[in-house]
C-alpha cells in the first residue's frame, strides 16, 4: 500500500520543472561569468610580468653604457682584421707609452731639483718690501 503511494508521488515529481524565467536568468548568469583559463596565454602573461623589471634595468644599463662612451666600443675601425694581429696600433702605443712614462719620471726629478732650487733662491734673497 505504502509503496503504491510512494510510486505515485515520484511520478508527480518527475513532472516538476523550473520556471521559464528562472531558467533564462540562470543561463544568462552562467554565460556572463568570466572564463578561468590555464592555457598558453596565461603563461605568456606571467612571463611578460617577470621580465618587466629586468627589461627596465637592461634599458637603463644600455643608456648608461652609451652615455659613458660605450658607443666607441662599436667603432668600425675595431673590426678591422689588423686589430687581431700583433700590428694593433693601440697595443703598440700602450706598450711604447709605458717606457716613455718611465723616462719622464727621471726627467721629473731633474726638473724638480731645478724648480725647487729656484724657489730656495727666492726665499734666500734679501728682503726689500717687508
Amino acid at each position, binding site marked *: 500500500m505504502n509503496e503504491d503511494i510512494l510510486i505515485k508521488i515520484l511520478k508527480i515529481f518527475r513532472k516538476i520543472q523550473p520556471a521559464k524565467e528562472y531558467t533564462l536568468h540562470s543561463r544568462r548568469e552562467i554565460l556572463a561569468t568570466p572564463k578561468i583559463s590555464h592555457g598558453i596565454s596565461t603563461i605568456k602573461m606571467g612571463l611578460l610580468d617577470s621580465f618587466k623589471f629586468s627589461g*627596465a634595468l637592461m634599458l637603463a644599463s644600455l643608456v648608461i653604457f652609451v652615455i659613458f662612451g660605450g658607443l666607441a666600443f662599436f667603432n668600425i675601425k675595431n673590426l678591422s682584421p689588423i686589430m687581431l694581429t700583433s700590428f694593433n696600433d693601440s697595443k703598440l702605443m700602450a706598450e711604447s707609452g709605458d717606457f716613455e712614462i718611465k723616462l719622464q719620471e727621471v726627467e721629473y726629478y731633474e726638473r724638480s731639483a731645478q724648480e725647487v732650487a729656484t724657489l730656495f733662491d727666492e*726665499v734666500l734673497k734679501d728682503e726689500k718690501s717687508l
Partner: protein
Amino acid sequence: MRNHYKVIKIAATFLAGVLTLVPFFINAQSLAKAENKEEVLEGISEIKVETVDDRKAALLTIIDLTLLEIQDLENKLNAFKDLEGRYLDMRSSFLTQLENYTDYLNSIKELLTSSEFTLESIQKLAQELKDWRENEYAATVKNIVNFILSFQNQAILKIADARLGKISLDLKRFKAAKLLETGTLEPFLVKAGENLKKAGLLNDETMILLSTSTTPTIDSVKTVQELVWQSLNEVKLAYKLFFQMSAEVKKLLKL
C-alpha cells in the same frame, strides 16, 4: 602600452639615481689628482716670495712636495714583489733612508707651523733645507730612481721581446697564407731584434753593476743611469720599427 610606460619609468628612475651619484665620484677623483707631485711642481714657479710669511709658505710647499716624492718612491719600491738577496737588502736600505727623510721633513714642518720667524731665522732654516735637499736627498733619489728604472726596464724588455715574437709569428702566418709578400718587412724585424738584444745586454750590465756594488747605494751612479737610458733607448728604436712595420702591413693589405 601601459607596460611599456612602466618599463621606461623604472629605467628612468634607475638612470636618475646613477647620474646623481656620478658627480661625487668625479669630485673625489679630481681631489685625489690635485695631490700628485707633478701638479704641486707645476704650481711652484707661480709662488711669489716677498714677506717672511711668504717664505714660510714657500718652505712648507717644498716640504710637502718632497714628502709626495718620497711617498711615490716608497710605493714604487714596495711594488717589486720578487726581489731577492742583495736587491732586497738595497730596497730595505732605501726604504729606511726614505723613512728617516720623512721624519726629518715632518720635524721641520712642525717647527714652521708652531714658531715665529724673523727674516734671518727663516733664511737660516731655508739654507739648511736647501743644503740637505741638494747634498743628501738628491743623491739618494738618483740612486733609488736608477734602482727602480733598472727593474722596470727588465719588465719592459720582457713585453718588447713578447711583441717581437708575436710580430715574427704573424709575418710567418701572412706568408704561409699568401696574404702578403713579407720580403720588405723582414729587414725591419731583424733590426728590431738587434735593438732588443742590445737593450737586453745593457740591462744585464746594469743589473751586474747593481749587484756588485759594495755599498747599499750605487757607486757608479752615472754609469748605471747611462746604461738604463741606453737600454730604454734601444727599446724605443725597436718600437719605432714596429710602428713602421704596422704602417707597411696596412699598406700592403690595402687597409
